[in-house]
């Protein structure tokens, strides 16, 4: 029993498919109703694709696994319709403190860049996120979430995927065009396919304790303690979540006995040694975990796609699990939709694996580096690590070397074959393969943000300063782009309102603070093309309709 949270129990409901004579066919089936599976389901349903989600359980994640959600996750959540609930419940923090032995060596303020809709990251227990997602799935006509439906057999031909599903009322059969496996680190679909996730197992154990405290006792900050006096030779992380619950993460070493360490009589003294004898707290939940950094060779296997922990796993430092998982499904759903609609060749589906294995490698690299710093692999590594920490107190040069986790940022898919290489010069962080930046805009006279307006289709951004930048001929061409089989809907971005006759699918937005223009290094005439997942895929200094069509064709997988 949790003191701060009551776990919902969802009903198993018999489906008409269980009474069908043969296997019922669905366009898309998702396995696993964790955050990644539900993100996929919501996205498909929002595209109007009928999707069935199968989950072997009937509640949300017990205990809080994922904690930290980064800006990109929140931006995607906004498009899925759950962003605001996460923000409202979650805890925003900016201050991080690094301790070594008995003293604070420095602190850092991660104050996010101004003028983005969402903060750098929030902390929220995973069960809340899942609850919001379940609610959202249930709002969507096209999504059918089935609890206590366990996939026990999977096979596929060139044309179809076949599933056997076990339920409390016995098994039944399903077929689908596409299967998305989001069934976690020990993915059953993966083993059914005879596939492996390969990588490095870390010989280390961690104890997570979620404790409830009076918020007056500890501020909403991230504390990372290397080699603390109360937990010698190891490390400890303190993080605040919603409901005055704090996450404490103790590195226990490899020799620790997980069953012993999980017992309250062993946890409480550890927590007291950390917080101080006088601090009152209640233990909410505890778990001992180990981790691996590994991934599958390919995330596409015919008509079966792997996403989230099923496809790749990292250490928890850097919060790259859920954050990268949602980027997976965001990358995948629009591609499957485009192929289903006959608007893209099936080769587009390979780009999911190409792009997301590239991203997984970056996450694994960062995560492995953090782990190696936090838990030095040999004596000399420890000497360097400790030297960095001691120097960091008085000499700022050493601080960038301190690695207590590099917080998730979306990998820039710079090597993707869907991108159109720049032929013009640009000087900004956003490049083809990167998510588009955000910034406050005025749309139809209302204050909103650019990222709230982009996505789910191809978008163009054409920067204009005055009437002469938006000649009738250009507007006509933009109107034609909006009528393509896969429409490109363009926003004219200006620093002031303009009285223009705009064709359907073309809108004017006002870049109220000028930050969109600045962040994209734009001038009058500059054009950016973004994909349905808001990634920039091409850009040019002068709008050229033929070049935009060619870039879109490339982004749809035409070689």
């Amino acid at each position, binding site marked *: 029993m949790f003191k701060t949270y009551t776990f919902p129990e969802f009903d198993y409901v018999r489906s008409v498919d269980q009474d069908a004579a043969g296997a019922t066919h669905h366009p898309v089936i998702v396995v696993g109703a964790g955050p990644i599976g539900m993100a996929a389901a919501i996205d498909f349903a929002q595209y109007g694709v009928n999707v069935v989600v199968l989950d072997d359980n009937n509640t949300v994640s017990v205990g809080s696994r994922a904690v930290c959600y980064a800006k990109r996750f929140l931006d995607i959540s906004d498009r899925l319709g759950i962003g605001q609930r996460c923000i409202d419940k979650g805890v925003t923090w900016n201050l991080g403190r690094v301790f070594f032995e008995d003293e604070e060596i420095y602190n850092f303020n991660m104050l996010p860049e101004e003028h983005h809709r969402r903060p750098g990251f929030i902390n929220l227990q995973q069960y809340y996120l899942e609850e919001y997602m379940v609610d959202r799935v249930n709002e969507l006509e096209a999504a059918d979430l089935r609890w206590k439906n366990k996939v026990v057999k999977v096979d596929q031909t060139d044309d179809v995927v076949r599933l056997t599903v076990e339920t409390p009322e016995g098994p039944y059969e399903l077929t689908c065009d596409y299967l998305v496996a989001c069934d976690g680190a020990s993915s059953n679909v993966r083993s059914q396919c005879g596939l492996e996730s390969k990588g490095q197992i870390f010989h280390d154990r961690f104890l997570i304790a979620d404790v409830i405290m009076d918020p007056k006792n500890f501020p909403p900050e991230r504390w990372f303690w290397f080699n603390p006096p109360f937990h010698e030779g190891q490390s400890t992380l303190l993080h605040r979540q919603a409901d005055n619950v704090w996450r404490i993460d103790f590195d226990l070493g490899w020799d620790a006995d997980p069953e012993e360490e999980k017992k309250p009589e062993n946890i409480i003294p550890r927590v007291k040694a950390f917080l101080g004898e006088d601090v009152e707290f209640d233990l909410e939940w505890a778990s001992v975990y180990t981790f691996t950094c590994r991934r599958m060779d390919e995330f596409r296997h015919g008509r079966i796609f792997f996403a989230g922990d099923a496809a790749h796993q990292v250490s928890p430092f850097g919060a790259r699990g859920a954050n990268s998982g949602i980027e997976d499904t965001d990358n995948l759903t629009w591609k499957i939709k485009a192929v289903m609609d006959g608007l893209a060749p099936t080769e587009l589906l390979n780009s999911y694996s190409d792009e997301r294995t590239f991203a997984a490698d970056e996450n694994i690299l960062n995560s492995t580096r953090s782990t190696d710093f936090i838990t030095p692999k040999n004596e*000399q590594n420890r*000497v*360097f690590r*400790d*030297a*960095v920490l*001691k*120097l960091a107190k008085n*000499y700022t*040069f*050493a601080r960038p*070397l301190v690695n207590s986790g590099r917080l998730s940022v979306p990998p820039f898919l710079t090597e993707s074959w869907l991108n159109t290489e720049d032929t013009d010069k640009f000087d900004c962080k956003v490049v083809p393969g990167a998510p588009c930046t955000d910034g406050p805009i005025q749309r139809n006279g209302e204050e909103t943000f650019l990222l709230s307006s982009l996505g789910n289709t191809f978008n163009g951004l054409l920067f204009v300063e005055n009437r002469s930048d938006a000649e009738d001929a250009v507007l006509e061409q933009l109107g034609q782009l909006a009528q393509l089989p896969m429409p490109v809907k363009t926003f004219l971005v200006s620093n002031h309102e303009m009285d223009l006759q705009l064709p359907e699918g073309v809108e004017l937005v006002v870049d109220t603070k000028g930050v969109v223009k600045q962040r994209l290094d734009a001038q009058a005439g500059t054009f950016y093309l973004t994909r349905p997942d808001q990634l920039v895929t091409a850009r040019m200094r002068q709008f050229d309709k033929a070049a935009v069509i060619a870039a879109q064709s490339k982004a749809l997988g035409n070689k």
Partner: protein
Amino acid sequence: MANLILEPNLPDADAFYKELTDLHRDLNNEQSRDVNARLILLLSNHIGDHEALSQAMNIAREHIPPQGE
């Protein structure tokens, strides 16, 4: 990027060498390793040229035969 300087570059080699060894004169092994680590970190940051540092790291262990797993 500049290549690692492998020709003599220290204005007073003897004085430098003495200072380097004096640095460790009264230290035990553990202290020496700590001081060396700090020195490497300070100098690396000062050099700030990743390519030159990689070259130095390679040369520093080129005499050691590659270790089999």
